[in-house]
């Protein structure tokens, strides 16, 4: 079927990269995974449980890892630069080697917004302010002195999302449902805690998400306050005083919390922007990589031989990312078999 | 006939006498108590009715027909009718015949309570006379009738479906004791009479039985214990009677005259309400009738259980059952003794205490009246004339604008002068408040609405909502103004030729009788006549007074949305047994509720008529 074994490099070994590698291997290719971290699995591997089934993330990443064990994987390796040749791309890697490939798949994923940039929320300043990533790490390891039997916990949605001042006007898509998931998990850990979610809009578009919301309201008594947190201060006892407008009530609101969780949004991985510019792949005005179109060619770039999978083109859920990875694998297969 | 014992006594009658004395004493005290719990005007009204020949005769007739013959039950279910009337009437006849025997043969013993009951023990047959044989025959005949009833009762208890009941009441412990003692009485009597039949004589039942028993029982030693057992069974039955459902036997005899006197429930727990509760025979007909019964969990919320909980004073369950009910009135419609389930429940709701009292002070009826007077009439006239119609859509119709549009369109087609009382929404009619047990508060709204209606100058008040219709008709002081439901109004217009409706051949419609319109106001035929002018009419499985509530009723305070769904679906299933093309109703709430789950179009009667005129 394939005359000459082509080389496909996959930049990033998160779930998008792993899934694409798995599919490409099944199609008979020998893809190369390039991962700058010392382990594969990306962000999802750091998460504890996944919505909406509350399945452990290990249930996803474990089999993915196992099934891609045979794929050539370069860990602790960054792409230093990429050159575009005729029909081929030459990747110079951080270890000095180079990789000539016929197709490049960007599975570069996202960066979690640096919550300390929202200075008014005091992440990195106030002890009791943490991020979604910190909370997931706590769910995994139960080791964080900041989380000590809180009686009142707040979740701030849209931290670094839908915020032009933070440089990201886009919705990060998964934070609403993640916040609700984490709020429920907090309630399960600390049933006596009052939990508040400060939201601008609740965007619960996915399957089972609305059920999650209703469950959070009715079964867990989580309070939803429509209003963006304006500022956070520290009370004399070290708890945080959170101010917001309760827009449904039309009045400012103030509450003292033991723990404030910032739902840091999803922004594009700056490395991906850098690589894209090097080979003339378009970057969208939201900072994410630009697909050939956003309807039926999400996984295709403006350049032949360059493909996208997962959140390098925008915030994605896990199932979307996996579907895109499969779709990208198929697109690469078709590209390599196209008579030219 | 001669007496076997000179003193006319045997100790075995003592249990019977104890039971009799207890039950009589109890019932008399209870009746006096109920009487004095009535408000004074009701007491007077009751006494007057007892001596008024018309009501007195009606009382006797009703007691005979209902308590003994169970005519209502016969109409509903022949097997059950036979079962109940066989036991009740048969027993009654045995008592009467027993007295006749005593009067005929030993008239000097008539003052002894127990003599007619245990007659066969105390006498020995000396010669066979025609009256004697006849009486003996009748005694055996009615005993046979009763026994056949008892057999049916036993079958019903273990396999209710055979006698046409899906569900039967779960009996309390006392009820069981009463039931088994009742079952025991008549076979024991048969045994006792059979054992002594060679002495006292007997008829076609007792004589052969006596002959059979004598074939293998050598002596009469077992006769006396059997009479003892018979007496004890009677004693047990009478002693437990006040604490069982059989209390309905004496209670109903007071309930009938009181109802005939026009007495209504005035207190949730006392007087007439108490009497209704005790009149409940726990037959369980209301369990099958209750639309909530489609959910098994709601079976225990039927009226029979309300009555039981009221007798037990279980406040938590009383509140729960009272709040859940849809107030569709079907249990009342099918109840043999006429226990008013909805009224009883509303009375419980009225008893409730609130921390907040409604206050409609901010509603300025005067300015609303002015606003309505300023509103121009639609139609030929500019000022109110005889026949000007004031159309009150009501809260629910505002959620079903199709009804409002069709109704006003029909008014225009009929060339009437009309105006709308609530074009931009109005006040509530007050019925939902009443259903929630807040009648006093509803009076405030009634007062304001009356002021507004009067200000319109119209003398016909047209309602497209039966909930409103019932309260406007029954509670509003609107003398001189005709209150009419649109289904009736349009039927009259069609009959009078003012509305031309074209019959659409082949279109099959089913009419759903809304609870408030049918059972609530007795309107069944006019909508059917009107619809017949427009299409072919088929009937639902249950219709007229037996119609099944749509499940959307405002009557229920606590039923949740999801709990109502199976009720609606059940009602829809019943409505579509004849496979109609469309479902038609006359209530916006039924319409909205059915539309949610119906597999075919649901329309208001006005829409059907408007579409074909």
């Amino acid at each position, binding site marked *: 079927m394939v005359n000459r074994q082509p080389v496909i490099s996959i930049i990033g070994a998160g779930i998008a990269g792993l899934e694409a590698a798995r599919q490409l291997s099944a199609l008979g290719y020998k893809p190369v995974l390039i991962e700058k971290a010392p382990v594969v699995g990306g962000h999802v591997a750091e998460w504890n449980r996944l919505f909406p089934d509350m399945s452990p993330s290990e249930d996803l990443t474990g089999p993915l890892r196992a099934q891609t064990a045979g794929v050539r994987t370069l860990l602790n390796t960054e792409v230093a630069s990429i050159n575009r040749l005729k029909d081929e791309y030459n990747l110079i890697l951080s270890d000095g080697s180079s990789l000539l490939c016929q197709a490049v798949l960007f599975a570069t994923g996202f960066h979690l917004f640096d919550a300390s940039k929202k200075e008014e929320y005091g992440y990195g300043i106030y002890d009791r302010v943490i991020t979604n990533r910190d909370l997931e790490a706590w769910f995994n390891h139960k080791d964080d002195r900041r989380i000590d039997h809180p009686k009142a916990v707040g979740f701030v949605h849209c931290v670094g999302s839908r915020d032009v001042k933070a440089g990201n006007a886009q919705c990060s898509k998964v934070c609403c449902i993640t916040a609700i998931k984490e709020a429920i998990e907090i309630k399960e850990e600390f049933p006596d805690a009052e939990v*508040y979610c400060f939201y601008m809009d*609740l965007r619960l578009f996915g399957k089972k998400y609305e059920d999650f*919301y*209703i469950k959070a*309201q*009715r*079964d867990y*008594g989580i*309070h*939803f306050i*429509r209003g963006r947190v304006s500022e956070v201060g520290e009370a004399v006892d070290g708890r945080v005083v959170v*101010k917001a407008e*309760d827009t*449904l*009530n039309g*009045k*400012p*609101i*103030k*509450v*003292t919390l033991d723990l404030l969780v910032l739902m840091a949004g999803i922004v594009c991985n700056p490395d991906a922007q850098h690589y894209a510019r090097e080979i003339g792949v378009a970057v969208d005005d939201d900072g994410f990589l630009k697909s050939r179109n956003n309807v039926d060619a999400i996984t295709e770039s403006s350049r032949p031989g360059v493909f996208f999978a997962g959140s390098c083109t925008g915030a994605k859920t896990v199932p979307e990312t996996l579907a895109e990875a499969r779709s990208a694998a198929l697109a690469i297969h078709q590209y390599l078999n196209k008579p030219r | 006939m001669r007496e076997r014992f000179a003193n006319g006594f045997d100790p075995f009658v003592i249990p019977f006498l104890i039971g009799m004395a207890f039950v009589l004493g109890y019932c008399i005290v209870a009746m006096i108590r109920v009487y004095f719990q009535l408000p004074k005007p009701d007491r007077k009204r009751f006494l007057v009715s007892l001596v008024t020949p018309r009501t007195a005769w009606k009382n006797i007739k009703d007691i005979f027909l209902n308590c003994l013959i169970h005519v209502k039950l016969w109409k509903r279910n022949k097997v059950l009718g036979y079962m109940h009337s066989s036991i009740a009437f048969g027993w009654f006849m045995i008592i009467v015949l027993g007295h006749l025997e005593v009067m005929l043969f030993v008239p000097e013993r008539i003052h002894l309570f127990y003599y007619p009951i245990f007659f066969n023990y105390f006498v020995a047959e000396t010669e066979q006379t025609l009256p004697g044989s006849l009486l003996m025959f009748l005694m055996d005949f009615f005993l046979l009738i009763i026994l056949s009833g008892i057999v049916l009762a036993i079958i019903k208890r273990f396999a209710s479906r055979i006698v046409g009941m899906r569900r039967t009441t779960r009996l309390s412990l006392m009820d069981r004791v009463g039931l088994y003692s009742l079952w025991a009485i008549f076979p024991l009597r048969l045994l006792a009479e059979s054992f002594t039949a060679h002495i006292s004589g007997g008829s076609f039942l007792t004589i052969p039985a006596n002959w059979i028993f004598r074939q293998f029982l050598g002596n009469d030693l077992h006769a006396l214990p059997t009479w003892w057992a018979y007496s004890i069974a009677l004693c047990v039955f009478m002693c437990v009677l006040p604490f069982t459902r059989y209390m309905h036997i004496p209670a109903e005899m007071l309930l009938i005259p009181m109802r005939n006197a026009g007495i209504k429930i005035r207190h949730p727990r006392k007087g007439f309400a108490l009497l209704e509760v005790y009149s409940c025979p726990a037959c369980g007909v209301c369990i099958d009738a209750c639309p909530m019964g489609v959910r098994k969990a709601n079976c225990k919320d039927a009226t029979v259980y309300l009555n039981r909980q009221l007798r037990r004073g279980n406040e938590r369950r009383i509140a729960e059952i009272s*709040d859940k009910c849809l107030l569709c009135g079907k249990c009342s419609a099918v109840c043999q003794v006429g226990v008013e389930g909805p009224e009883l429940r509303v009375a419980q709701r009225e008893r*409730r*205490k*609130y*921390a*907040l*009292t*409604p*206050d*409609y002070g*901010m*509603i*300025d009826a005067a300015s609303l009246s002015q606003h309505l007077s300023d509103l121009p009439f639609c139609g030929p006239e500019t000022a109110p004339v005889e026949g000007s119609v004031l159309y009150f859509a009501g*809260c*629910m119709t*505002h*959620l079903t604008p199709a009804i409002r549009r069709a109704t006003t369109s029909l008014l225009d087609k009929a060339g009437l002068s009309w105006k709308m009382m609530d074009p*931009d*929404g*109005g*006040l*509530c009619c*007050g019925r*939902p*408040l009443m259903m*929630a047990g*807040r009648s006093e508060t509803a009076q405030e*709204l009634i007062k304001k609405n009356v002021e507004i209606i009067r200000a319109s100058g119209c003398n016909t008040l047209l309602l497209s909502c039966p909930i409103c219709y019932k309260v406007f008709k029954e509670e509003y002081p609107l003398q001189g103004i005709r209150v009419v439901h649109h289904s009736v109004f349009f039927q009259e217009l069609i009959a009078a030729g003012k509305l031309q409706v074209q019959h659409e051949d082949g279109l099959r419609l089913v009419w759903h009788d809304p609870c408030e319109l049918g059972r609530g106001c007795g309107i069944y035929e006019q909508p059917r006549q009107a619809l017949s002018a427009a299409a072919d009419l088929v009937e639902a499985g249950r219709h007229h007074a037996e119609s099944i509530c749509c499940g959307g009723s*405002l009557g229920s*305070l*606590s*039923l*949740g*949305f*999801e709990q109502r769904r199976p009720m609606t679906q059940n009602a829809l299933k019943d409505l579509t047994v004849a496979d109609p093309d469309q479902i038609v109703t006359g209530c916006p*709430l039924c319409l*909205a509720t059915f539309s949610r789950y119906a597999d075919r179009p649901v329309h208001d009667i006005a829409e059907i008529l408007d579409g074909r005129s």
Partner: protein
Amino acid sequence: MDFGYQINPSSAVNLDQVDRRRYDALVRLSPDAATCMGCGSCSATCTSSAWSGMSVRKVLLGLQRGRDAEVNRMLSACMLCGKCTMVCPRGINTRQLILTLCRLDKNGEVVR
């Protein structure tokens, strides 16, 4: 001393101090009340709102924000017509909710 002006009470709602006993009692008695998502259907359809500003949404919110006087004023204006129950997209039995609330005293206890 009269300065001709005074310290105005803060318009901010301090959730640390809000007495939510009535709300807590309500959701204990009818848990569906907690599922309100503030869509406002109930307010828009309310028969009484034209005169009183009655809104089940605002009642539920007010209970959680310590606006007792306003909540009571709105509750007293309800005519129990049931339209809000008909339109609630979450299927909340708003009518029962109102009746339940009317039965609670300020401590969240059912009056007897």
